[in-house]
C-alpha cells in the first residue's frame, strides 16, 4: 500500500484528540505567563509605593480602550465559529475579519502607548528611567516585558486567524470540520484572558 492510499484510508479525524492537544498547549501558555506574574507578585510586595506611583504614569484611557477592543474581539471570534457551524460562510468570514481588525487596532494602540512612553524617555535602561527609584524601574521593566510578550501573542494570533480566513475562503473549514477554527478561537480567548489580568495589575493599581 503506498502512502497516498494509506492517507486516504486513514483520514479519520479525532475531534476530542485535537481539543485535548490544544488545551495542553494552552496550559503551556498559561505557565509561560506564570513567570512574569510571579515576579510581579514578589516585586509588588517589595515596592508597593513605587508600583503605585509608576502605575499612575500609564495611560488609563488607552488601557480601557484596549480592554474593550479585546473583549469585543473575543465575541466576534465566538460568533465566527458559531456561523461556521451553521454553515454561513460569509457571516463567519465577516466576523473573523472583524476579529483580525480588532487585533490590529489593539496593536496600533499599543504602539501609540509605547511610543509616548519612549518619547518621554521611559524605556528599559534609559537615562530618564534610571533616575527613578528601583521599584519604578522594575515596574516598567515588567510592564514592557509582559505587555511585549502579550503583544507578540496578539501578533501570532492575527497571523493565525489570517491563515484561518484563507482556509475558510478555500472551503477547508466547513460545518463538518471546523476544529482548526475552534482551536484558533481558544488561543485567541486565552490571549484575551491574559490581558484581563495584565490590565488591572499594571493600570488599575494607582
Amino acid at each position: 500500500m503506498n502512502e497516498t492510499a494509506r492517507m486516504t484510508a486513514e483520514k479519520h479525524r479525532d475531534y476530542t484528540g485535537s481539543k485535548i492537544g490544544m488545551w495542553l498547549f494552552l496550559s503551556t501558555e498559561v505557565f509561560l505567563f506564570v513567570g512574569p506574574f510571579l515576579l510581579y507578585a514578589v516585586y509588588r510586595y517589595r515596592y508597593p509605593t513605587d508600583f503605585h506611583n509608576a502605575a499612575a504614569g500609564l495611560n488609563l484611557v488607552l488601557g480601557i480602550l484596549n480592554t474593550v477592543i479585546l473583549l469585543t474581539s473575543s465575541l466576534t471570534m465566538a460568533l465566527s465559529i458559531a456561523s461556521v457551524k451553521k454553515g454561513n460562510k460569509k457571516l463567519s468570514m465577516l466576523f473573523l475579519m472583524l476579529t483580525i481588525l480588532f487585533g490590529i487596532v489593539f496593536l496600533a494602540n499599543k504602539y501609540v502607548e509605547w511610543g509616548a512612553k519612549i518619547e518621554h524617555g521611559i524605556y528599559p535602561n534609559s537615562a530618564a528611567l534610571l533616575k527613578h527609584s528601583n521599584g519604578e524601574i522594575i515596574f516598567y521593566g515588567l510592564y514592557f516585558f509582559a505587555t511585549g510578550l502579550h503583544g507578540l501573542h496578539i501578533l501570532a494570533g492575527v497571523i493565525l486567524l489570517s491563515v484561518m480566513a484563507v482556509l475558510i475562503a478555500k472551503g477547508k473549514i466547513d460545518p463538518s470540520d471546523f476544529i482548526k477554527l475552534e482551536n484558533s478561537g481558544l488561543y485567541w480567548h486565552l490571549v484575551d484572558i491574559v490581558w484581563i489580568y495584565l490590565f488591572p495589575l499594571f493600570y488599575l493599581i494607582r
Partner: protein
Amino acid sequence: MDNTLPSGSVHGASFYEERGHYRGILSWILSTDHKRIGILYLCSVLTLFGAGVLLGFLMRLELITRGPTIMGPQTYNEIFTLHGVIMLFLFLIPATPGVFGNFFLPILIGAKDVAFPRLNLLSWWVYMAGAVLAITSLFTGNGPPDTGWTFYVPYSLRTGTNVPLAVFSIFVLGFSSILTGINFVTTVHRLRAPGMGWLRMPLFVWTLYATSWLQILATPVIGVTFLLVIAERVFGIGIFDPAKGGDPLLYQHLFWIYSHPAVYIMILPGMGIISEIIPVFSRKVIFGYKAVAYSSIGIASVGSLVWGHHMFVSGYSYTAGVLFSFFTFLVAIPSAIKVYNWVATLYKGSIRVDTPFLFALAFLVQFSIGGLSGLILGALSLNVFLHDTYFVPAHFHYIKFGGGGFAFFAGLHYWFPKMFGKLYNKKIANYALLISFIGFNTLYFPMFLLGLEGMPRRYYDYLPRFQPLQVVSIVGSWILVLGLILMFGNLIRALFKGEKASANPWGGATLEWQTPSPPPAENFEKIPVIEHGPYKYR
C-alpha cells in the same frame, strides 16, 4: 512465550522499506512515521552525546596535573558549561522520550502512530534547529558561555560571552520538548487499543505519561525565564539586576522550578525501561504493578515541589529550607517503591541472565547510590557542608548518567533487535557493560570522597592533597570511554553484520514483541484487542 511469530508483515515489508512519498534522506527527514522519527532522534542525540562525552573527557584530563595542563581557566569554564548544556538539554531530556518514546509508545498501546504525526516531525525539526543554534553560539559573539549550565544571574548578565544565543537555543529546545509532551499525553488518552485500560498499560507508557506532563507544565517556566535573561542582556530591563532593584534569587527560583522537574524528565522514562526489562528476564509479572505505575505520577508531582533544595545556601528563610528539605525526603519514597518492587520482582523469578538484564542490574546499583547520596544532599545541615563540592556532581552523575544514561543503554540493548531487526554480539556487549561499569564507578565514586574532603566543583585547579583521587577518577574516565567505544562499536557492527533477529528474541509479553522485527509501517496487521495486563507469563 511464542518465539515463532511470523517475521515479515502483511505486505512483507518493514517500515524501512516503505518509504512513502520521498526517496533517500528525504524519506527520513520528512517522514511522519513515529518509528522513523525515533531513529532520527537516535542518530541526533547519540551524535551530541558523543560530543558531550568528548568535552567531559577533556575536562577530566585537564585536572591530571595541577595548574594549566591542556587548557586555561577560561576554556575550562566554557567546556564544563557546554558539557552540561549538551548532556542535559540535547541528550538526556530528549533521548528516551524522543527515541524509545517515539518508536515504542504507539506500539506498546496498540496504535498505528502518535496522535499528531506531523507535530511529531516538527518536534524533531525544532530540536535540530535548537541544536544548530546551540552550536552556532559557540563560534559567534565572544565565544561560548562560561557560566555553567545554570546561567545564574548576575554573572550571566555581566559575562562578555555569548549567553543570549545559548539561552535562546535552550528556549527553542524547550519548544520541541513541549510538542513531544503534548503529543504523548494526547496519544495515551486517545489511542489505546480496545481493552487497554489504564492499568493494562506497560509501565514504560506510565513513565512517559508522567514525563510528558512535566514537559508540558514545567518547560514554559524556563522558557520565559530565559526570555527574561535575553531581555535583560539586550534591553537591560533590570528584573534580575541588583543595580536596578532586581533580585537574582528570583532567577534561581524560576530556573529550578523547571530544572528540578527536568531531572525527573531525564530519569523517569529510564525507570520505565527498567520496569520493562526486569519482568521479561525474571519471567514474572512485575511485583506491585499499581505501586510502580502510580509512583511515576508521585515522583512527577512531589518532584515539582522540591526545587528549593538547590538553593539552601542562596539566602532564603530557614522555614523555606526546612520545607524544601522535607519534600526532598518525601520524593525518595516513590523512588524507593520502584527500586523495592524491581528487586521483589526478581525474587523467585526464573531469571534469564542476558545482556539487557545485566544493564538493568548496573542501573539498579548506580541509581541506588545516586538516590541515597541525594538524601544526604537533601538534608539541610549536611548540604551547607557539601554545597558546591565534588559531592554534588558525583551525586547527579550517578543519577543522570549511572541511572538515566545506563537505562538508555539498557533500552538500546533491549529494543535493538526490534528496531533494526538485527542481533548484536552479546558477549562483546557484556564485556562493554563490565568495562563501562568499572569505568563509571572509578570515575565518579572518588568524587564523593573528594567532595567530603572539600574539593569545590567547577575549579580548574586544586590543592596537592586532592591529586591522588583526581588521578584515580581521571583513569576511570579513560576506562569508561573505552567501554562506550566498545559498546557502540559492537552495535554499529551489528547493524551491518548482525544476525537476523526473530520477532521476539527475549520472550517479552508486551505488544512490540508481537510485531515482526523491524515492525511494518502500520505496526499491526489489525489493531489488537487487549485482554490482560502487560506482563503475563504463564
